[in-house]
């Protein structure tokens, strides 16, 4: 199914002549660094990826069968939640943060806007258990899956055992998410020598490297570290970011740096979705008052002219990866479209 992203290697193990395991590997362009996710702990198999995709799109994960992962992470929005500033959940509840886009997760070592989660495997527990998101718990989800014939079959295919467990559930969702790789934007074609930036995009690229590139590091367009960005606290949310995790004063208002890939699909922007337009984001960084934040990269405003802003945005548009966003293999899976009774 995802053979364009993954190289299939048939490994025959010495001493196991009667079995050969089909282990898949992530394929990524040569201008990308090596992924940080340790695949030896969770070897990719097509069947586990398929199971993860089923789980990702299935509202069985929520308490009242109403919300799936894809409810707030839609494939057409680079797995973000377009038009919604804050995430939605069961019983019409509204969360406190903007649902981030999901791609290139194999290169990330902390998750959530505040880095509260330290491993991709464990990330799905957070929305699963949050009362304003899925309002469930993993024990009950695993039980629901155990009582569903199509999942027993899918777990058997993926794990050679029809019994769903927490570990298998989490690792399967991880496997699907690992395959969400955004590496086919115009920028990537340019890096591969197969395309060129227009004069305006090239001028924008210079501005990008000068003003944005230290946090939104190429080629993933994020260092995936944490930073203060000078936004005033929304007093209806009182969100101090990473401070909530570490309780360390120095971490107050640090938020995870998001990737700038696929910006056309992932609005609204910032951790609380306060800006609907990219222009508003640029304007924020353009007029940051000196000393508003002491982080060296943002200690001075960008002071871009209107023309500069247009050039910068034209470069940022080269990071839109339509082939990824509209990849039919990432959509709602066939296995859920015809739902048997059990």
């Amino acid at each position, binding site marked *: 199914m995802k053979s364009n992203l993954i190289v299939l290697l048939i490994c025959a193990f010495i001493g196991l002549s009667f079995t050969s395991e089909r282990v898949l590997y992530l394929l990524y362009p040569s201008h990308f660094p090596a992924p940080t996710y*340790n695949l030896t702990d969770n070897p990719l198999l097509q069947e586990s990826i398929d199971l993860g995709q089923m789980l990702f799109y299935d509202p069985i994960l929520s308490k009242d069968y109403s919300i799936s992962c894809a409810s707030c992470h839609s494939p057409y929005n680079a797995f973000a939640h377009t038009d919604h500033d804050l995430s939605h959940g069961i019983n019409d509840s509204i969360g406190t943060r903007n649902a981030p886009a999901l791609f290139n997760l194999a290169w990330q070592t902390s998750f959530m806007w505040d880095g509260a*989660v*330290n491993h*991709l495997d*464990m990330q799905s527990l957070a929305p699963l258990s949050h009362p304003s998101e899925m309002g469930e718990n*993993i*024990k009950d989800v695993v039980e629901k899956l155990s009582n569903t014939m199509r999942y027993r079959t899918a777990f058997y295919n993926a794990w050679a055992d029809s019994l769903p467990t927490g*570990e298998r559930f989490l690792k399967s969702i991880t496997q699907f998410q690992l395959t969400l790789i955004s590496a086919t934007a115009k920028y990537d074609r340019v890096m591969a020598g197969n395309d060129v930036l227009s004069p305006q995009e090239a001028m924008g690229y210079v501005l990008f490297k000068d003003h944005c590139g230290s946090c939104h590091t190429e080629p993933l367009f994020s260092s995936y570290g944490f930073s203060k960005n000078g936004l005033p606290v929304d007093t209806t949310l009182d969100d101090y970011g990473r401070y909530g995790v570490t309780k360390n004063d120095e971490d107050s208002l640090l938020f995870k740096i998001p990737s700038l890939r696929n910006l056309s699909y992932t609005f609204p922007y910032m951790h609380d979705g306060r800006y609907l337009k990219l222009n508003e984001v640029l304007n924020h960084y353009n007029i940051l008052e000196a000393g508003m934040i002491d982080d060296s990269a943002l200690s001075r405003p960008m002071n871009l002219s209107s023309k500069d802003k247009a050039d910068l945005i034209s470069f940022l548009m080269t990071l839109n990866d339509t082939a990824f966003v509209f990849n039919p293999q990432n959509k709602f899976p066939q296995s859920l479209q015809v739902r048997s009774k059990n």
Partner: protein
Amino acid sequence: MLGSLCSVSAQSGAVVSTDKDSTQDIQFRFQPQINSEPLKLGRSYYISELEDSVSIEKLKFYIAELTLSNAEMTHVHSSPATFLIDMEDSASLQRSCAIPKGVSYQKLSFSLGLDSAIQCSGAKGGELDPTRGMYWSWQSGYINLKLEGTSNSCPARNHLIQYHIGGFQSPYNTEQSIVFEYDHSPSILITMDLNKLLTEKNITKNFQIMSPNQKAMDFAKNLPDLFRISP
């Protein structure tokens, strides 16, 4: 699963065989106690130090790297080496370790709680599966010890005492090492004195700890002192 069937490692270089004929099973019995008798969940106990009754509804904790070792630096782990003690599952209180005959050990050691290597490396199965109710969802990390109960002295809603003690990152690394002298007996009772815990924690004031913080650290530091061993 954690650990191999019985992982014997000889740091000094000598590899010790673990054939059935050449090994001996050492039994470990964990026994949380209240008023010096084995704890029964849901039973009301009068605690004279508190001048009130307490009922424990839930007690679960992780023991990691249960190890017998000697001065020659040879050591042997229980099987599995890391496990969950759960008062609702009496079988979980009985553990064993196969030691090679003819090798003597002087030290019994284990950790109460899980180390950061386990806590940072993704989803685990078996006794470490998050379905066991010992993993926080809102912030990565295992709950090392979960104790829940009720007492009229506890001013919380429904008089509920809730200690969910965890945290693996400095300054709130709650993992505790516990070491005992070991006297070669083939069966070891490891008791945990809950009177001491409930009295020191003062359930009238300090009745809810549910995240990695200073209170959890203070709680965790008291835990090694609750454990005793006897043949």
